[in-house]
């Protein structure tokens, strides 16, 4: 595990979907086997330019998520490198059996990019929120599950995935996100957590867009003399168990923050490792077992306590108990 104690900037807000599209376009020009499959979603996936510049490498499947996964597996079987860019809520659950059988069980080289994940569809409600995708994809043997924190990580992740011939589900949000890294000058390795900040009082573990919440919370806690470790789990499966066990041993307390149901997501994955290896007090912050309230991501995060004030309060509670 490589330490990256950075002070990220708040400039360069850009959506991960745009970064992924730009990266695939750049790589797709060099490798004609790279294909992007969309389900009437090239606009929402920011793939319009990709389609315009590489029309032979974009496959429109229409609003048919079972078929898009089946077709991608057939294309991968024949040596193509298909990346499906489709709304996370439908891609992860409407086609979960195709993901299980045609992709993971058959070990076809399909990359599933779930766009507009979590609550980033805002007011569209529970049908469009994707808050169960990590739970269902995590339960499938042979499937990797990943979430990039910012533009630097999204780029590195896609570059790595083009060279990685195994099935992967990647979940990203819809909106521009602030940087979590100062630059892309860090070591990205599939399956290896990144320590964003060192500290031994407690550990905050986050993934995707909640990494920024974790970093901001750690900064606020630093001001009251609490030194948090912040771990970014960009690969939720396979999980970097070593980093988690080390954090449990060295910091004694863990808070997880996720844009996902509290059932079966990042917190559950971390807890499975912690309780079986080095039990320590934990708090799992996520969306409770209810249809999530609607609003902007920031409003929803605040409503459910995925925010600096609440993380700070929980950290102080954990440290006094």
């Amino acid at each position: 595990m490589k330490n990256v104690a950075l002070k990220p900037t708040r400039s360069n807000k850009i959506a991960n979907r745009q970064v992924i599209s730009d990266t695939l376009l750049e790589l797709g020009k060099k490798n004609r086997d790279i294909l992007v499959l969309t389900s009437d979603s090239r606009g929402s996936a920011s793939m319009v330019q990709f389609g315009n510049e590489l029309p032979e490498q974009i496959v429109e499947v229409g609003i048919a998520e079972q078929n898009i996964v089946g077709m991608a597996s057939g294309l991968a079987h024949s040596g193509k490198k298909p990346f499906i860019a489709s709304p996370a809520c439908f891609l992860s659950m409407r086609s979960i059996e195709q993901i299980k059988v045609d992709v993971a069980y058959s070990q076809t080289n399909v990359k599933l990019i779930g766009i507009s994940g979590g609550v980033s569809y805002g007011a569209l409600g529970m049908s469009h929120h994707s808050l169960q995708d990590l739970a269902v994809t995590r339960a499938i043997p042979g499937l990797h599950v990943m979430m990039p924190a910012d533009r630097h990580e999204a780029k590195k992740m896609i570059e790595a995935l083009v060279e990685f011939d195994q099935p992967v589900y990647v979940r990203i949000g819809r909106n521009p996100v602030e940087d979590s890294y100062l630059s892309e000058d860090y070591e990205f390795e599939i399956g290896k957590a990144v320590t964003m900040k060192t500290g031994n009082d407690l550990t905050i573990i986050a993934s995707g867009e909640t990494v920024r919440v974790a970093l901001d919370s750690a900064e606020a806690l630093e001001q009251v003399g609490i030194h948090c470790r912040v771990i970014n789990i960009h690969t939720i499966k396979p999980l970097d168990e070593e980093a988690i066990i080390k954090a449990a041993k060295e910091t004694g307390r863990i808070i997880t923050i996720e844009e996902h149901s509290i059932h079966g997501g990042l917190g559950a994955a971390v807890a499975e490792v912690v309780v079986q290896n080095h039990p320590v007090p934990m708090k799992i912050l996520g969306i409770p077992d209810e249809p999530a309230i609607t609003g902007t991501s920031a409003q929803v995060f605040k409503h459910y306590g995925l925010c600096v004030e609440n993380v700070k309060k929980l950290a102080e509670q954990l440290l006094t108990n």
Partner: protein
Amino acid sequence: MEEITFLKRKAVEIRMDLLTMIYEARTGHTGGSLSSTDILTVLYYKVMNIDPSKPKWADRDRYVQSKGHSVEALWSILADKGFFPKEELKTFSQFGSRLIGHPNNKVPGIEMNTGALGHGLPISVGMALAAKLDGKSYKVYTLMGDGEQAEGSIWEGAMAAAQYKLDNLIAIIDRNRLQITGSTEDVMGLEPLGDKWRSFGWEVVEVDGNDIEQLVEVFSTTPRVAGKPTMIVANTVKGKGISFSENQVAWHHKVPTEEQFNLAIDELSKQLEVLV
């Protein structure tokens, strides 16, 4: 020996092999394997461009068995073709065997894991599209069940195949008119089945799917229309070849008793005797 006679004999031998597998393993999908045996026999011994010594050869024709539960005919044929030792058929459905109750791509000759119904066509659409993108001339064959037609994913794949003008895709429906619960028309009516596919932009041809000569003829003339995927509606008899299992829904996954097994082998042996 005349080719048609060879194919007819081969189909009977495959029926004997698969029945023996099911009898010894005490499990299996007898009815649908027997109904589709003639189709698979024609595909594997006459139609498809494959090489058992090079199962991953890039230009091979692809076969995807969407009705994965009827795998017994396929295991028998792959063993007979030399994709794996025939002796291994004895392990069918036994603990730890790779010859499980559905196609399993750990076995040479199997392209994809299937068995969850409604998956084979979308996968085959992807394979056929890859051939077009790469300028390759291989064909993709997929066999579906008729009960399976109720799966919505099939119709998603049907639309895409027509949209992408995949005339290198040939799908076959094993139209035996029985599914596990009973008649397909009672469970979820399919007729007019051919017209449904025609309306989705496919070229449709109907044949007697247990008539080797008709099957040879139809496969030799596909694709029929440039730019159109082909659907072969193969009218078959579930449990075909054994008097007491024909058209009996109970034989969907019934295992023969010793007496039934001996009777069946006897009937099949008699069928062989006249094929010279």
